[in-house]
C-alpha cells in the first residue's frame, strides 16, 4: 500500500523525540507500528512527520525493585512474555501479552503503543486499570505520572498530549493479590468482544472491563460470584453493538467474564 507522503525521524533520546513532536502539530510518535501503520494505510491518520521511537534504548526494558515493576514504553509484548522479572513480580502481564494477536505482532508491538492507541478492544488498558498501574509521560515541561483513570480519556485518546511521549509504566508487585483475566475473542488470540481483568486482595475484587466503553470500566466488589455479577450489572454498561455482538450480549459477557476472572484469579 502506498502511504501518504511523510517525513520520518528516528531520534536517539527521549528529549530529542519530545522536541521533534512538539515542533510540528502534525507529528506522530511511532511505537511498534502494528496499529498506526495500518491506520496510515487507510489514510485515517496522515501524519506528516513520523517520529520513530524504536531508536531510543532508554524506552526499552523491564526493571523490578521488589515493590514494583517498571516497564519501558517501547518494551515489546514478547519481551514481557519472556521476562523473568515479570514472571516473578506480576505474571499476569505475560499471560495476557501472550494472547495478543500472533508472534510477529508480539515481536514488534509494545506496551506503550497498546495503551497510547487506547483502542477499546486492546488488552493492556483494562489490565493496567485492574492492577492500578501508574504511567509516566514526558514533555518539554518535564515529566508527570498519572493513574489509569486519568490516563485513558476516550476512544484513541489518552492523557499523552501533542509533544509528549509515554516513557514507562509502573505496576505494583503482586504481593498477596491474585490476578485473573477472562475474555471472549474473535478466534483464538483475536480481537476481544469483551475483556476482563481482575485483581483480588483481602476478599475484594477490583475488576476492569474492556470493549464495553471508551475507556476501561472499573468496578469493585466482594470477591464472590453473586456480588461480582451484581456490581457489573449496577455499572449499567452501555456497550457498543456490532456485527460480532449485540450490546445485550456484551453486557451479559461482562458479567460472566468478570465472575470468571475473579474465580480463576491466582
Amino acid at each position, binding site marked *: *500500500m*502506498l*502511504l*501518504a*507522503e*511523510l*517525513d*520520518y525521524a*528516528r531520534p536517539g533520546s527521549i528529549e530529542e523525540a519530545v522536541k521533534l513532536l512538539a515542533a510540528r502539530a502534525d507529528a506522530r510518535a*511511532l511505537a511498534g*507500528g*502494528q496499529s498506526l*501503520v*495500518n491506520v496510515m*494505510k487507510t489514510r485515517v491518520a496522515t501524519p*506528516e512527520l*513520523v517520529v*520513530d521511537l*524504536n531508536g531510543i534504548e532508554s524506552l526499552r526494558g523491564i526493571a523490578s525493585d521488589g515493590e514494583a515493576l517498571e516497564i519501558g514504553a517501547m518494551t515489546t509484548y514478547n519481551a514481557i512474555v519472556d521476562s523473568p522479572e515479570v514472571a516473578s513480580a506480576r505474571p499476569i502481564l505475560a499471560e495476557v501479552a501472550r494472547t495478543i*494477536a*500472533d*508472534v*510477529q*505482532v508480539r*515481536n*514488534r508491538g509494545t506496551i506503550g503503543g497498546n495503551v497510547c492507541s487506547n483502542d477499546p478492544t486492546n488488552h493492556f488498558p483494562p489490565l493496567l486499570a485492574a492492577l492500578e498501574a501508574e504511567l509516566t509521560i514526558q514533555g518539554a515541561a518535564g515529566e508527570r505520572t498519572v493513574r489509569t483513570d486519568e490516563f485513558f480519556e476516550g476512544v484513541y485518546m489518552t492523557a499523552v498530549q501533542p509533544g509528549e511521549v509515554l516513557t514507562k509504566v509502573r505496576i505494583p508487585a503482586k504481593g498477596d493479590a491474585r490476578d485473573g483475566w477472562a475474555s471472549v475473542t474473535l478466534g*483464538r*488470540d483475536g480481537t476481544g468482544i469483551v475483556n476482563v481483568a481482575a485483581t483480588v486482595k483481602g476478599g475484594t475484587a477490583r475488576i476492569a472491563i474492556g470493549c464495553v466503553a471508551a475507556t476501561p470500566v472499573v468496578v469493585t466488589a466482594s470477591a464472590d460470584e453473586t456480588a461480582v455479577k451484581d456490581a457489573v450489572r449496577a455499572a449499567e454498561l452501555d456497550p457498543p453493538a456490532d456485527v460480532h455482538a449485540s450490546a445485550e450480549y456484551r453486557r451479559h459477557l461482562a458479567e460472566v467474564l468478570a465472575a470468571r476472572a475473579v474465580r480463576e484469579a491466582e
Partner: protein
Amino acid sequence: MSDHTISIAVNGDRYERAVEARKLLVHFIRDDLDLTGTHVGCDTGNCGACTVLLNGVAVKSCMLLAPQADGAEVTTVEGLAPDGELSPLQQAFSEHHALQCGYCTPGMLISATYLLSHTPQPSEEEIRRAIQGNICRCTGYVNIVKAVQAVSGQD
C-alpha cells in the same frame, strides 16, 4: 517529503538505496531489490505472507516503513536457499505436501525458521502457535505442522 538513504543487508548482501520515507519494507524488498519471494497478501498485518526475519526476529514487512530497517539484517525466503538448494525445512514442506497454491509459503517458511531457531524441538501446540500469524487457505495447516515436526526429527 523526505528521502532517506538506507543500508540494509538482505540475505547477506548489503544494499544501499534512497527510498521515500513512506515506502513499506515489503515494497522495498519486492520492488527495489526485486526479491519477489516475499508476498503481499492482505496488506493489513493479518495474513503473514510478507513475514521476514529482521535481525533474526519474525516480523510482518508490510507493517514497517523501509527506513525503519536501516542498518538491519533481513532474511527473506530467498535467503533460505542461497545456492538454489532447498533447506531441510523447504524439503520437508515439499515432501509433506505442506503447500498447494504456495502464496502463504514464503511467510510460513520464515515463521517456521524463526520457531526452529529458538525452539529446535517444538511441540505441535508450539508449531501451531508459531504459525498463528500466517494464514493458509489451501492446506488446513495439517501438513505444514507435519513438515515442521518432520524437520525437527519428530515424525
